[in-house]
């Protein structure tokens, strides 16, 4: 069983680069609401989006990510807030997010998340106080079916207010599975599956595979994460991230995302650092090496017990 799951995961991962070419012809209209895929968790952002399968970090933003991983979290309750600027040279969105995840049973974790991104006022609506924004509210549940296997689901509502008289909205769900074996975390599933926006434009839905492995060096460690997404629009992205824990209180992180040309989140390098003490964590992240989202940053404050 363990071996077969691992084999399937590896096969899927190896196939990811080949999928876009095969799916290109089916790509219709561009994806709507690409902002759904912007990271709300500063830890993941600093690893360029990798770390979906990680269970060791604060799972406060599990509702935006992987609730199945949260089911394996040893903490009773994890909460966090984040604030940052996304694509400051372009859309210049100011994003504020909050999330909470907790166990209602030992094997069941619930998570909630809220995020709002505000954009500068439109110069062509000078007489109006209206400013565009998008809003995401999500809830998730994770089940640890066994000590090594768990599943999770999220559902959420998203709305983009574009003009004073024009907005878009959508519902989406995600279904994920988590498998742990000998320090290796594997995750996979379908992310942001939903109906078409404005009757024609798909959400940035993808099939996702993620792996993470941690190396322990005394009270320090190094976690390596590899995430891959195949978007049903034909795009793909692969992200490799590192999270180094130093003395149990300091963290240095980095990662790189390689994405196809029209992927919702473009290629870029993530960097970050963190501090944790007595359950309180403070994390910062920064994105560079990207024409469109370079300069993005995020800071987050978390608490877990």
């Amino acid at each position: 069983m363990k071996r077969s799951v691992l084999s399937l995961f590896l096969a899927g991962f190896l196939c990811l680069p080949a999928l876009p070419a095969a799916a290109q012809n089916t790509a219709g209209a561009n994806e709507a609401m690409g902002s759904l895929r912007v990271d709300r968790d500063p830890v993941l952002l600093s690893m360029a989006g990798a770390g979906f399968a990680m269970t060791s970090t604060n799972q406060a933003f599990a509702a935006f990510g992987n609730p199945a991983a949260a089911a394996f979290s040893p903490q009773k309750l994890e909460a966090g807030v984040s604030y940052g600027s996304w694509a400051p040279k372009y859309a210049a969105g100011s994003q504020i997010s909050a999330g909470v995840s907790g166990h209602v049973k030992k094997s069941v974790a619930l998570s909630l998340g809220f995020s709002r991104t505000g954009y500068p006022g439109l110069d062509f609506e000078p007489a109006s106080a209206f400013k565009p924004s998008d809003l995401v509210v999500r809830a998730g549940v994770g089940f640890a079916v066994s000590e090594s296997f768990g599943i999770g689901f999220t559902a959420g509502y998203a709305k983009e207010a574009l003009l004073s008289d024009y907005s878009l909205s959508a519902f989406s769900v995600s279904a994920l599975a988590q498998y742990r074996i000998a320090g290796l975390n594997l995750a996979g599933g379908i992310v942001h599956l939903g109906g078409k926006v404005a009757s024609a434009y798909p959400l940035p839905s993808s099939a996702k595979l993620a792996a993470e492995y941690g190396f322990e060096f005394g009270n320090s460690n190094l976690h390596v994460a590899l995430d891959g997404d195949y978007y049903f629009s034909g795009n793909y992205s692969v992200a490799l991230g590192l999270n180094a824990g130093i003395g149990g209180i300091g963290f240095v992180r980095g990662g790189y995302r390689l994405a196809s040309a029209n992927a919702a989140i473009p290629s870029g390098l993530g960097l970050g650092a963190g501090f944790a003490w007595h359950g309180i964590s403070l994390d910062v992240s920064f994105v560079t090496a990207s024409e469109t989202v370079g300069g993005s940053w995020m800071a987050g404050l978390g608490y877990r017990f």
Partner: protein
Amino acid sequence: MKLKLLVFPVLLTALVSCVREAPVTPETEPEAGQGTDSEQTPSYVKVLFSEEMCDLVEEDLSRGQVRTRSEGLNGLVDELGIESMERLFPFAGEFEPRTRKEGLHRWYKVSYAEDVPATRATRAFESLPGVEMVEEPLKASLTTNDKYWGDMWGLNNTRYPGKDVNVQEVWENYSVGNPDVVVAVIDGGIDLNHPDLAWNCLPSGHKSYVPGAANVVGHDHGTHVAGTIAAVSNNGIGVAGIAGGNYAEGRRGISLLSQQCFYTIGTGANARDRSGDFETAIKEAADKGALISSNSWGYNFDADDDGVISGAELASARSAHQNVQYYSIARAIDYFVKYAGCDNDGNQLPGSLMKGGLVVFAAGNENIPYGCPANYEPCLAVGATTVSGSRASFSNYGDWVDLCAPGSNIISTHPNSTYISYSGTSMACPHVTGVAALVLSYFGGQGFTVDDLKSRLLEGAKDIGLSSGSRPVGSLVDAMGAFMAHDSGTPEAVTDFTVVPIGHNLHLDFQGGGGTYGYMALAARSEEALRNTRLSMLDTGIEFSHLVIGDVEEPVAPRSIELLSLEPDMDYYVSIAAYSYGRRYSDLAPIKKVHTGHNGKPTIDTDPEETFVFRQFEEVDIPFTIIDPDRDTIAVDFQTNGRATLKAEMDGKWHFRLICQAVRGPASFQATLVASDRFGERALRSFKYSVLENVEPVLSREIAPVALNAVGQSVDIDLSQHFTDEDGEPLDYRVNSLDANTIAAELVDGNKMRVTARAFGLGEVRAAVFDAMGATAKSDIPVLVRPAGEKVTVLEGNVFTDKLTILTAEQATQTTVRLVSASGAVVASASGEYSAFHPVVLDTGKVAPGLYTLSVDIAGDVTRRTLVKK
């Protein structure tokens, strides 16, 4: 200055009193109560636009649109629910040049939603820039206030001799009318099938100007007025019109033209009159050849129809009276007075009997000192008299009333072959019209003017004591007086003359006497016919010619006169009569017999060797001279195996112009000119002409794209610097805008294209040239309109759908464009050499709705703009 009618709802009324008289043929007696008030309230105003505004909206409206490039006007479309805007004086075809010259094209009739009050519509238009004048809607009504029996005392007053229009002597000695005189009846429709009218109605051309009434329908008032003017006389039935001809003698009267402006809807007690566009009817009457306009209608100031003119109503009447010169009706009257019988330049047409037109108006029936539009100075205003020669009690009065005429109990024609008596200044007006038509029938001709006609009517009128006093209505119109006006009495007869035949023409020399206005030479084939003819109304077969001395005061002087184109080789009896200004004729000079000579053959003189060569667009003068020794009328025929046509003009002598037509390549042709006189004598001349091949015009120098920085900014492009034609022929330049919402293009100074920015954006204008043969060359010129300093323009604005058109630098520059989603994805991009005139066009049909940032990198200078895709 903006003006409007200052009267509260001004009413139009046919100026008639007294219906309900027993008809002469009583089986079709009209309904009692006919002619009560009209309830029609048209939802429209008449608006005079400025030249600039008119130019702006004219093109749009001509396409049937209501929305125009005038933002202010577009605002009123929504505010007032404007349904249509159309010219008050419609496009006039060949008469359009003079219509525009007089500014009539700037008057528009604007219809709006029925629930919008007229005062609100008027105020809205008054506040609109580019509107010079607004007239509130006019309502139509008929009023009645009298009813009497009567006979035709207006033409034959046996009870009070001398108080009629004194027309019988004119009929007997001068004229009963002339079909070439067209009189327009601006009124209800004439019953064109009435047995007492049909003979004197034009066969076609009658028209309804009443909305919703497509056909001319016999109307009681209009038919009555027409009968007074020209009911057929001496036909054994009904009544006699003043200028109605003489049926028994086969002489037709003047021609009636019905310009229907009243139309009765409903019957009996529910009968209502709907009124039409009086201005258009008057204006178009001139275009149709009418020389006299008879108007038995006017503004009614009894707004509440209580039969009493209150103080406020009198004030309204005074205001209209004082401001009539500003109204649209005044413009129509001006047009009629100036252009009736004339070409577009105001010159008398060759076949016309008068230069200019006479407008006759009824003074009105309110017994007040005002009357509008009758008081407008160019009109003849007519008051009404009774059978005893006193002012009719209802007649309006004042120094502005020019003439009076019978107006009480006037019997005339009525629809459905009946007759009826009416009273009103409506009935007086056609008496003056009829007399004017008679005078014009007899005296009309080249050089006769509307002032001559008015002078005769006014000078010949009889003073019956009504032209002064507290309520004057002028002198009584007098037909015989008009004919005798300015007359100096019967002149002396010519005592002797000599006559010499020249070919089949006769040349007469004689000694002129005193007190003579002119001489008439006469020739007849029998002495008896000449001796017995009435000089004022010559019999058929009498040849004649006039020598008018006019005001020359040479009592005794040698005179010559010729009788042309008589039959050749024939005996004629010849004499001369002198006549005065009023056509009082002297006795005939002693009759002489003379034999005419042979008919001479016409000749064509030219250089027999000459071959004419010309380019296809040319008209070439041909130095042919055609001479007929007898000065007969010459008919010219031109025949050729080519496609040229000949334009021949007679101006003392013949002039010819050969007009070339398009041919394939150079070619030579043969042509023959034939001149024939009326007796069949002919002269022929053949010649050759060659036509060179046409060379088409070309765009010899490209026209650079145009950049403008502000709406309203213009630039002129001299097209003659860009188009050339090797032929050297004059080119016809034409320009138009291919994006009329953004750019306007007009031709100025004949060869310059003026490009004017109407809105920001990118468009094209087209310049084209045509040579005389229709060959053309053209150029489409891009025009960019955007604010100075703006580096990037997105034509779709900030909210786009299927595409984005991005105008960059004016010069082609390396440019990179990216459209980036809020999440950072590049969803569309382009890179290359682009410019404002070669814009970047991104296909965004598949781009999802959302917030986007457009990044435009022009040689390192980056501009970003936030857009929304819908």
